[in-house]
């Protein structure tokens, strides 16, 4: 598997979704040992008990979020850490790192953009009783994948 796929186009916009999907698939395969593929969002409504966020600034300005259930977040942490016991802090930490790697992998695939785009440190929210409003008012793309038969949503929102 290649982790050096660059999408060189005049505009990256048309490639955002496939690049995001590829970035997600690589992170799950390399760090969690799982092959995941996008599924129809209408049939797999994602749960938002855990939400990890990474801000993008510079050439790309916006936010990448990863939303999943508490059970999925815990399973991801266990997969990352092997047999190690995972505390609530480690579950949040693991999901934040997954979001961080997806964001980094995504921007590294956009030739000419990676040099001029910075990432924030991750933020992780637990609990569904919140509303998230991004100041990014431009294009948004989302992919939903099945991890251990449960939906995980990865969303990119960009400022126009």
């Amino acid at each position, binding site marked *: 598997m290649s*982790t050096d796929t660059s999408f060189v186009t005049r505009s990256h916009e048309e490639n955002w979704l496939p690049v995001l999907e590829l970035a997600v698939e690589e992170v799950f395969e390399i*760090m969690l040992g799982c092959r995941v593929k996008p599924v129809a969002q209408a049939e797999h409504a994602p749960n938002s008990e855990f939400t990890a966020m990474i801000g993008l600034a510079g050439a790309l300005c916006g936010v990448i979020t990863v939303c999943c259930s508490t059970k999925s977040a815990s399973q991801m942490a266990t997969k990352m850490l092997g047999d190690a016991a995972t505390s609530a802090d480690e579950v949040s930490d*693991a999901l934040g790192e997954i979001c*961080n790697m997806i964001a980094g992998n995504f921007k*590294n695939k956009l030739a000419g953009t990676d*040099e001029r785009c910075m*990432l924030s440190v991750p933020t992780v929210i637990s609990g569904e009783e919140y509303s998230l409003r991004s100041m990014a008012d431009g294009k948004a793309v989302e992919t939903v994948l099945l991890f251990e038969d449960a939906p995980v949503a990865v969303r990119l929102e960009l400022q126009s």
Partner: protein
Amino acid sequence: MDKIRALIVDDSSVMRKIVERSLRQAGVELEKVTEAGNGAEALTALHDNPVDLILCDINMPVMDGLEFVREVAKLDGVKGVPIVMITTEGSESHVVQALSAGARGYIRKPFTPDQVKEHVLPVLGKKP
């Protein structure tokens, strides 16, 4: 291979554990592992914990990895210690900045144990 003392610098405790596990999977025998959550903590840790290898993230609060590498280069007794960056920042400019500052290796996240082996063993004078 002789046992080595490693310093792992990353603001994610999960990632520090993964890096340590990857080192062991690469065949690196660890006498002691010291952890730090950012560059400033790592500089403090180096006062009391001599190390043979440093693995360091770039994007961290308080002091980032590039500044940490530049600070290490000023410290007598530590500046010769090999540093390998492990980071999501994969751009050519970050690689150049890190290597210019004194890092000896660069691994992009996500990474496999084989990539750790490939980049870490050579800086320890071993064949991957």
